[in-house]
């Protein structure tokens, strides 16, 4: 039974990795990357390395994912002015 | 936000720090699954975290009423069952019966923390999802317009108020 789980996990990992790399929309690519980190963590668990899994989940998926989302936001800000809705929200935050 | 907080004396600061340290040490014991050996590190970290928490949030934390908490937990358990079953049946139903819309709900609760708890609870209960705050109103996305929604939202608000030991005025605009 766990063999079926492992095969499914490996197949999904490959699918997500391809989805992350072969994507033109940056945002979607980043979300796929975060999901890939989570799956990689599960794979480390199955490989018997829970400490590596913890590090992968925290650093690989969490921190890197948040930094990449931030980077995507900055790149958009450079390219175009903010749309009205977001600008208003920022003004109320300040 | 930090400017609005009242200035507190050193005695109060010490009292609050030690209170929160005790709570955090208990949390550490739970997280370490009873491993008292690790408490050497844990106690130190708990005191550091409590100091940081008093520095960031010097005001008194809102008090919970024990009876309100017990009733709230029971209410929450039953209602989240109802909510999960409701949404699961709608998802699996072949015709996908949905009739969503948005409505504005006027807070009767006051205070920051009770309102946040109320909005978060609402998101976890059947058919409602808090979408945004606007002054004293909350926009709620409902899954089914036909259900008597305003009444059930008001009921949730009553329970949250009881949790904090607040007595609410009667709602004037129940449909």
């Amino acid at each position, binding site marked *: 039974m766990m063999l079926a789980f492992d095969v*499914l996990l490996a197949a999904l990992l490959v699918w997500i990795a391809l989805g992350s790399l072969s994507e033109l929309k940056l945002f979607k690519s980043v979300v796929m990357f975060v999901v890939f980190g989570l799956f990689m963590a599960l794979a480390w*668990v199955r490989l018997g390395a829970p400490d590596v899994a913890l590090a992968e989940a925290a650093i690989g998926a969490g921190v890197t994912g948040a930094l990449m989302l931030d980077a995507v936001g*900055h790149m958009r800000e450079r390219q175009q002015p903010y749309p009205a*809705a977001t600008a208003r929200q920022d003004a109320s935050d300040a | 936000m930090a400017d609005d907080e009242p200035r507190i004396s050193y005695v109060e600061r010490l009292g609050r720090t030690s209170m929160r340290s005790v709570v955090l040490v208990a949390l550490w014991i739970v997280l370490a699954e009873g491993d008292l050996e690790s408490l050497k590190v844990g106690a130190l970290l708990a005191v550091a975290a409590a100091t940081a928490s008093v520095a960031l949030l010097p005001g008194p934390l809102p008090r919970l009423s024990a009876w309100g908490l017990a009733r709230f937990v029971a209410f929450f358990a039953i209602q989240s069952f109802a909510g999960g079953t409701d949404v699961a049946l709608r998802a699996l139903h072949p015709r996908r019966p949905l009739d969503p819309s948005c409505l504005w709900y006027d807070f009767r609760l006051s205070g920051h923390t009770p309102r946040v708890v109320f909005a978060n609870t609402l998101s976890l209960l059947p058919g409602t999802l808090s979408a945004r705050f606007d002054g004293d109103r909350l926009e709620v996305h409902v899954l089914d317009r036909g259900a008597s929604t305003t009444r059930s939202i008001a009921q949730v608000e009553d329970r949250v108020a009881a949790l904090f030991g607040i007595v609410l005025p009667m709602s004037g605009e129940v449909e």
Partner: protein
Amino acid sequence: MLEMMTLVLMGTIALAVYRIERGPTGADRMLSSMLFGTSGTALTLLLGEVSGLHRLHDMALVFALLAAVTAVAFVKRAWRAGD
């Protein structure tokens, strides 16, 4: 039984990956990655039970926290309507 459950959870996650593929908006993608907060936590707890590793409970905590962190990063930074 526990092994069956891990397979079911994998299936739910596969459905969420499909939702990320389809979109259509950024918010849809974000909420499917939120699903990994809950399903990932559940799956980690289950794997911990299957393999008898109680240390995995800590990893479940990390999953739960990180879902919130990415959601905040998304809302504060990367969000733009109609994407």
